[in-house]
């Protein structure tokens, strides 16, 4: 294997992010120091955190020498658990990277016709997956433990831990590489065998995969994470039959002075890493050039549909745009994730409460209701609004070159946002109703509020989505500029607060009635009055921002720079 080739291929991957960072590409010269800023930052933070921890250690053990043993034991147990921890989160983050890359239009991967061996290609792919957050965090962890070990006198263990941490990250990335190739091959085979149903199989399959992945991710990274990590860290020696635990066992054996066992598990770990790399290389060689078969959606001649959109007042242009967008959101994998977020928002708290064995509350709390009724639909309106124009990507020339007016463009996009946000409200509201059993009055109020939020936040996000549209597709579709996305988030947050503000007196009276029933028990404020005020605020916001969206669309179509 020529390591120079591997490094060159990795550089290609690293440099592919230039396009999405909006660099000025004429007379472009890279600043070698700034190009690696995440790693320098991680190194700096790691050193600072290590020094700080060391100072605290010195201060505490000087003040109370009895703490010395406690610190030593604690440090050792943290060091010993690190390889397994790094393995888990590297697996999660490299998998997330692969999910993000699923929308890549133009691959930055090495052209297969270059004289590069499959070993080099696979090695570069594994290492490139680690670049970014996983590698930066490994750099941070290593610098913390190395510096801190100087204070506690565990330099040898720290060095061994650092090596194990690197190996764990590589192990995770190699596993992701294997899963990625198998997934591509498996999906291709499913498409081929499923014929015309392939589109819907892909849609349902992607939704299920993303939902399961995100639920797992949030479960691990929220309350359940500490439990899972503690369990693995303490029980890793008992899990000797799992190759992924071998690195942790190696470190544990060396730290406990069991050199023979340490050497055996070192050999086993190295063997396992080589096996993972070998499997990834073989799979790449076998399926790396695999092209998924073309999906046939329909057979036979052309049979145009009259459609109901035209009957309910949409022009042919608006109907065509709506139909096109519907197909885009059910066929483009990177857009499918938009449908998943609202589902995950409500499933995660429900699953966590089930996991903790808590009984379902008979009377719904305000937060639970907000999560199930208001949040998913609002998030859907925000996400769709900000992406609806940018999702056109480089094909936006088709919109520019077609006789599409700003009015038709905004109308069709807005109707799409409202339709899917209200669909989301219907689904998540039904789930919330079943799980939390709110009263009929609360349900009606919550539904109307969600309705108002959707209408207002939809226009706000659409106006920001148009003005901040980012049609870049490499290395992945951006859809909206980061700055516009942040502005949109702030505007939606403020508008959401403004729309919900009329309910403040009602909420206050309810809360006070609980804490001081003698004084406030008889106080009753009618929520329907708040509902009317809220509707007026939402209407005003929707009208203002719809006009802004129209004006932004006009500018977009007039400028139409490509």
């Amino acid at each position, binding site marked *: 294997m020529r390591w120079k080739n591997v490094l060159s291929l990795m550089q290609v991957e690293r440099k592919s992010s230039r396009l999405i960072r909006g660099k000025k590409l004429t007379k472009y010269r890279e600043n070698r120091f700034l190009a690696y800023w995440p790693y320098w930052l991680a190194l700096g933070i790691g050193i600072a955190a290590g020094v700080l921890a060391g100072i605290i250690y010195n201060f505490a053990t000087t003040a109370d020498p009895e703490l010395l043993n406690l610190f030593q034991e604690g440090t050792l147990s943290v060091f010993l658990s690190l390889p397994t921890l790094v393995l888990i989160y590297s697996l999660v983050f490299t998998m997330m990277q692969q999910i993000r890359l699923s929308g890549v239009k133009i691959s930055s991967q090495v052209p297969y016709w270059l004289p590069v061996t499959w070993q080099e290609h696979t090695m570069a792919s594994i290492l490139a997956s680690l670049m970014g957050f996983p590698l930066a965090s490994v750099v941070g962890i290593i610098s913390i433990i190395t510096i801190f070990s100087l204070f506690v006198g565990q330099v040898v263990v720290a060095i061994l831990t650092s090596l194990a941490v690197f190996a764990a990250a590589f192990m995770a990335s190699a596993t992701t590489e294997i899963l990625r190739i198998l997934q591509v091959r498996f999906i291709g085979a499913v498409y081929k065998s499923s014929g015309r149903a392939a589109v819907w199989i892909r849609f349902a399959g992607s939704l299920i995969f993303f939902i399961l992945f995100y639920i797992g991710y949030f479960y691990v990274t929220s309350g359940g994470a500490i439990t899972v990590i503690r369990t693995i860290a303490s029980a890793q020696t008992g899990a000797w039959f799992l190759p992924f635990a071998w690195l942790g066992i190696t470190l544990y054996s060396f730290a406990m002075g069991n050199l023979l066992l340490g050497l055996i598990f070192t050999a086993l770990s190295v063997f396992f890493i080589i096996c993972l790399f070998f499997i990834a290389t073989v799979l790449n060689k076998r399926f790396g050039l695999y092209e998924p078969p073309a999906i046939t959606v329909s057979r036979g001649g052309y049979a145009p549909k009259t459609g109901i959109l035209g009957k309910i007042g949409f022009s042919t242009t608006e109907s065509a745009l709506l139909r096109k967008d519907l197909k885009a959101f059910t066929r483009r994998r990177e857009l499918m994730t938009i449908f998943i977020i609202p589902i995950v928002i409500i499933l995660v708290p429900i699953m966590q409460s089930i996991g903790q064995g808590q009984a379902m509350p008979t009377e719904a709390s305000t937060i639970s209701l907000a999560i199930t009724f208001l949040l998913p639909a609002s998030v859907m309106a925000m996400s769709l609004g900000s992406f609806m124009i940018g999702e056109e990507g480089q094909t936006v020339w088709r919109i520019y070159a077609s*006789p599409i007016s700003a009015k038709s463009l905004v109308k069709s996009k807005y109707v799409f946002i409202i339709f899917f946000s209200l669909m989301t409200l219907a689904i998540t509201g039904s789930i919330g109703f079943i799980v939390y059993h709110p009263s009929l009055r609360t349900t009606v109020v919550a539904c109307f509020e969600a309705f108002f939020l959707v209408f207002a936040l939809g226009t706000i996000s659409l106006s920001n989505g148009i003005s901040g549209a980012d049609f870049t597709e490499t290395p992945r579709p951006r859809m909206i500029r980061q700055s516009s996305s942040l502005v949109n988030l702030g505007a939606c947050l403020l508008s959401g607060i403004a729309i919900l503000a009329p309910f403040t007196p009602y909420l206050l009276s309810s809360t006070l009635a609980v804490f001081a029933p003698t004084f406030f028990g008889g106080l009753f404020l009618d929520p329907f009055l708040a509902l009317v005020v809220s509707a007026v605020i939402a209407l005003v916001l929707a009208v203002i921002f719809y006009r802004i969206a129209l004006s932004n669309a006009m500018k977009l179509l007039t400028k139409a720079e490509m």
Partner: protein
Amino acid sequence: MNGDLAVELKDVVKRYHEILAVNQLDLSISTGEIFGLLGPNGSGKSTTLKMLIGLVQPDQGSVNVLGVNVQKDPVTVKQLVGYVPESPRLYEFLTGIEYLDFIGDVYGIQTVEKKNRITEYLKALQLEGREGDMINGYSDGMKQKIALISAFLHKPKLLILDEPLSALDPRSARIIKDFLHQLKTQHVTTIMSTHVLEIAQAVCDRIGIMYQGKILALGNMKELRRMSKLPDSGLEDIFLKLTGTDDIRAVVEELAK
């Protein structure tokens, strides 16, 4: 504006930062003409074509297409024009037929008419049987055919085609060339940019050679031969002489060393 003119550019300037892409361009193209726009890479051809349909706004000057000012009323111009960009990016998640259906609806073609035209074009360009496949499974040539059909579908009065025959098989290329001549008899104007000089020579009534954002030479083959003082030469020699890139032999000899 002259009623016989399909396109009229007056004193048009377009800059991309420090790069002057189009430099005080004046150009008039008559109705029913097949006009070829040639020039080396980066000479301003694609920018000029994009300005005709409003995809690029000129920094200076005026662009009139079919009697309509492009800057003032771009939607009307787009309704009258069929456009194929240099590397057409299509909606890859749609099938070929869905894409053409979308285009037909955007241009407001009646349902029956749309069906007939789509069927006809798919048959002529041998896409029958693949129209139900998603475009991301198409070859480059098939994508180019879909892009061309989408430009012809609404029967435009002006066709703006940037490298229209690239990636096409010989049969389809011939059909398109003959079809352009047929459209000419129906007073449809065609402006095409190409690097294949044989195509330009065979298809175009007049040719404009662009260089550094300006029209260097303009006319039919006879006029171009006279301008270049190459009476018996083909377009390739004329082009190389006029654009000052006729040092081919020296370059080749240097490379072969």
